[in-house]
């Protein structure tokens, strides 16, 4: 079973993340980049699928030059090879355009399942896996907290608001996984050194049969019109319990329409 894991590089959530006031895209210079946190679970799941069913794990990343650091980390964890879609024209591409590029890049690979994290910590849209499955017209098994593969059949436990549902599809399929599906491994020292010699194929737009007009900020279907920094947190309200504490809390929650 050949697995492709979609890995995005994002600004570290522990840093002071910013949008560029000029073009309203993520300011990638402001904060050190890291692998999107949830994608580490996707990598781990990909590696486990390979360990159970054989085949290869390929990392697929669309991103700027520095994304090589995230690719190296994914290879250090045990993936076999990587495809890096790198093109200046991609700057500012939205979710739909990114899904389009990913679909084309998957077309250059032999794969049975593509595994992604359920969302990226920068944009938090959580739509790319679904868009990708839609564009490719393949099974869409998203928000998985458990994945089981039996031949060409893939079954996942899909997390819903109230619990989970069991969804089954056949390969090729696009999966997205939630954190807690597994416990991502640490890259071992051996893995780190071995990653140096693993192949990373760099593809530009033309290699994928795409044009500059297919991607980029100017051609995006969605637009960030304006943004504001979140207002600083207000000082909390302290309720002194003089016997009416429970009533005051209930009133507070009711006023917010939470109960």
């Amino acid at each position, binding site marked *: 079973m050949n697995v492709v894991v979609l890995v995005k590089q994002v600004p570290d959530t*522990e840093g002071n993340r910013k949008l560029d006031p000029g073009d309203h895209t993520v300011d990638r210079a402001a904060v050190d980049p890291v692998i999107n946190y949830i994608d580490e679970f996707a990598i781990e799941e990909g590696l486990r699928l390979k360990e159970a069913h054989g085949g290869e794990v390929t990392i697929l990343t669309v991103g700027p030059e520095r994304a090589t*650091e995230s690719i*190296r*980390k994914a290879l*250090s964890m045990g993936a076999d090879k990587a495809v890096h879609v790198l093109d200046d024209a991609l700057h500012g591409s939205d979710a739909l355009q990114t899904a389009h590029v990913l679909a084309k890049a998957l077309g250059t690979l032999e794969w049975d399942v593509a595994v992604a994290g359920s969302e990226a910590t920068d944009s938090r849209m959580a739509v790319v896996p679904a868009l990708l499955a839609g564009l490719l017209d393949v099974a869409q098994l998203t928000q998985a907290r458990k994945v089981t593969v039996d031949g060409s059949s893939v079954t996942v436990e899909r997390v819903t608001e109230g619990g989970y549902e069991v969804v089954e599809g056949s390969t090729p399929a696009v999966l997205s996984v939630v954190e807690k599906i597994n416990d991502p491994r*640490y*890259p*071992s*020292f*051996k*893995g*780190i*050194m071995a*990653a*140096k010699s693993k192949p990373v194929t760099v593809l530009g737009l033309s290699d994928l049969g795409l044009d500059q007009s297919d991607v980029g900020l100017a051609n995006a279907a969605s637009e960030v019109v304006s943004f504001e920094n979140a207002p600083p947190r207000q000082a909390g309200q302290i309720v002194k319990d003089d016997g009416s504490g429970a009533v005051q809390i209930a009133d507070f929650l009711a006023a917010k329409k939470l109960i």
Partner: protein
Amino acid sequence: MSDALDRLDLLDLDDDLGPEDRLLRDTVRKFADDRLRPNIRRWFEDGTLPARDLAVEFGELGVLGMHLSGYGCQGATASQYGLVCAEVEAVDSGLRSLVSVQGSLAMFCIRAYGSEEQKQRWLPEMAAGRAVGCFGLTEADAGSDPAAMRTSARRDGDDWILNGSKMWITNGSISDVAVVWARTDDGIRGFLVEAGTPGYSAQEVHHKLSLRASISSALFFDDVRLPASAMLPDGRGLRAPLGALSEARFGIVAGVAGAARDALASALDYAGTRTQFGRPIASFQLTQRKFAEMAVALQQMQLTARRLGELKDAGRIKPHQISFGKFANVSTALHICREARSILGGSGITTEYPVLRHALNLETVYTYEGTHEVHTLVLGSQLTGIDAFR
């Protein structure tokens, strides 16, 4: 905390790390934050350590004997080993001791002085952390002067009969194999003594105020019969164990910079939020002077460790240079931890903050693997040409 770490790198030393080294450093730092830091306070307070379980986890990371080559070892550079020691010791010197004793003392001796059979049997298992080793040189009455050791091995046919005892042996009572140095009629020789060998016993040392998250033991040998194949064939004389100690000291030089960094980062965070007289204590000039002096001293330690790594990787390192590193870095780390402790005031004496724990641990590091005084005399001898300790 990661913000404090960035601020402490005044000379941008981090910028020079290559991509593999950075990933290695970040991986060990994350492992330490996830797996070690949440438990260290309890281990230290309880005076215990799940050392065998941790050995397996360190083995999976690939850091046990990482700077050795072949037999399941990774052939890392000395500088990479130094990075790992710093991240582990940033949590606790006891944990770094576990890693150094396994890799630089026990495994190094087997790699450098062992027979092919000994290497095949032990090194892959020890690199994986499934087998744990210790290194027994010190005795109750022979510390700085190991040549005064009384433990002895005498021939009996092809076998050896080992008698005596060792003191302060890290990992001793949990080890599968002890590298034991004993006098023979052929000078000092090393022997591999397996746990369970009749006549061999180990007893844990308790009541420590330092290195509490580390197992220290006394080893006893009462007519222990060993086959000829238990002797390390290629190490003869005190030079052999001293060679291993040089290896381990390199890890200390880099490691203690981690402990100092952690204490200083902790104090920097604390001083920014603690207010007295209506202002953060970080705003007082006396506090800022402490930070300036400590941060400069820390970077000097890191530069020393880096230079020794370069010399070691170039195969040019000399014993007095290792002494330079241990002499300079351990005392500086101890000084930084004590000064950082003062910034935390009363909170600084608790185990809630790592600062005094680091300082307490460093009291051991100051003494083991050649005391501070002995390294002073090595430098004195190098400078003057006169040996003062013999």
